[in-house]
């Protein structure tokens, strides 16, 4: 659905996007993570046919960038960083205006469908200037979907929303999964990306990593198991370190933090060894590294900071 081959974008001497290679499958929810100024919005603008690339090629919904951008834009929906609504117009008129621009036939039905879907039907006649930030964002999402695009670009969909409004928007995006539509989300919210996205790309002018959130955690940190013990003796750590499949062991308070590849297979042996050495094992659990850890590791490494 999206194929990018060496895409780049320069503004005078500033490189915004550098040699980006990426493929996003139909129906996939893809998270594009990166710090401010990383070039995420520029990438969305490039892929929406709003601006032209400085180099490379890309295809979106079967259309090559720069070849037929008008047709490409018909297949693409975009939620811009700010909702960009006409404040003096009603919610209904905001949507019907865009439905006209997209040449939709049954405008009234399509507008009603999306206003109802996003819980705005009862407020349809009110000027959007009176709407809360969450309502405005939901209406902007409705606008991005009004023409049933194959590819939906969402630029920071929950930024600036209160937790309840963000939850509503996230639930709606989650509800879009499985409808065959490709969704490309730029976000700072790593928890959101973790929950919504099939794969993520960590991006800072260039792509730093690309995989599923779980695979990235595993790839960067391995899997970490925590053994909660009544007390920790120095011999316990030595015993665990003796296993060839153990990558690292660290004693923290009354816990042993062990990194290994396959806890399902190797945990029983470790527990048995600890019990044999006289340890009182109270609880064993897996330490789930957050996507934030992965992100900080990747972006920090790129900046030359030592990873935590």
């Amino acid at each position: 659905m999206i194929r990018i081959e060496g895409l780049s974008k320069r503004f005078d001497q500033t490189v915004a996007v550098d040699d980006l290679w990426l493929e996003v499958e139909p129906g996939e929810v893809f998270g594009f993570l990166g710090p401010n100024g990383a070039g995420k919005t520029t990438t969305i603008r490039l892929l929406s046919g709003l601006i032209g690339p400085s180099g490379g090629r890309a295809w979106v919904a079967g259309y090559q960038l720069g070849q037929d951008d008008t047709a490409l834009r018909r297949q693409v929906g975009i939620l811009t960083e700010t909702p960009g609504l006409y404040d003096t117009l009603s919610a209904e008129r905001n949507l019907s205006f865009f439905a006209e621009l997209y040449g939709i036939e049954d405008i009234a039905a399509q507008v009603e469908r999306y206003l109802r879907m996003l819980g705005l039907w009862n407020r349809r006649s009110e000027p959007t200037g009176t709407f809360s930030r969450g309502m405005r964002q939901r209406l902007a999402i409705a606008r991005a979907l009004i023409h049933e695009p194959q590819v939906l670009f969402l630029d920071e969909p929950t930024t600036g929303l209160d937790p309840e409004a963000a939850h509503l928007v996230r639930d709606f995006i989650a509800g879009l999964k499985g409808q065959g539509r490709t969704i490309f989300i730029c976000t700072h919210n790593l928890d959101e990306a973790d929950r919504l996205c099939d794969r993520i790309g960590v991006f800072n002018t260039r792509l730093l990593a690309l995989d599923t959130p779980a695979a990235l955690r595993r790839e960067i940190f391995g899997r970490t198991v925590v053994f909660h013990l009544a007390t920790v003796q120095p011999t316990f750590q030595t015993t665990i370190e003796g296993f060839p499949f153990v990558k690292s062991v660290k004693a923290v308070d009354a816990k042993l933090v062990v990194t290994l590849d396959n806890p399902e297979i190797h945990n029983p042996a470790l527990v048995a060894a600890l019990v044999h050495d006289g340890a009182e094992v109270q609880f064993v659990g897996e330490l789930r590294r957050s996507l934030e850890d992965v992100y900080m590791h990747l972006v920090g490494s790129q900046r030359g900071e030592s990873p935590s």
Partner: protein
Amino acid sequence: MFKNRFVVFTVAFLPLILTALPLGILYAAGSAGDLGGMTEDMPASFSQVCDGLEGDDCTRYFFVSQFLLLFMLMPLAIPVTIASYSIIGEKTRRTLEPVLATPITTVELLTGKALAAAVPAVIATWVAFGIFLLGSALLSVGPAVMSRLTEPLWLMAVLLVGPLLALAAVSVAMMVSSRANDPRVAEQLSMLVILPLLALFFGQIAGLILVNERLILWMAFVLVLIDAGLIAFAVQLFQRETILTRWK
């Protein structure tokens, strides 16, 4: 757009003021008593303008004809306010990017913006001219002067040159709006488009220029050429990428 108070003021009140002015002149000339004697002290252009009118009729027509150009000022000034806001106004309100993301072409977008600015201006001008004619009849200016006010010179100026001037003003305003960073600056710069007409207005008052049918036809011809060039230039100047990425 029409919920913007300044735009409403320009579209509604400018035509009212510019219509009331010549009507006021007609009224004042009508109630000034014997004006016929004034013609003897007037410059040569006076008799050229009157051309067949005598006495009070000549004086009234001479004074009111000086304001004919005000009906050509309306289609220049009114759309500038709307058109200069059209691009930069949307940019500053962050509503432009979603519009640019739709499949509409630059020509379609600019045509829509131009019509939205020019049509109200032209209609306002025509309505104002209609009110002026009605007011003139009510002020009993006499059949001879009324006949002169509805002759081809006036009708061509209002019905033909007016829309062409509106198109020129809109094109200039959209060009400025595509490049300016502030709606007020765009409007002020775009307002410079009325300067040539003001020069014509003061030239006429000073007796340097005689506005007749021939001049109006030449204006129409030149405006068609200017409009075509301005429209093409406006489309060339409208760069989506520059607007989205360079404007702050």
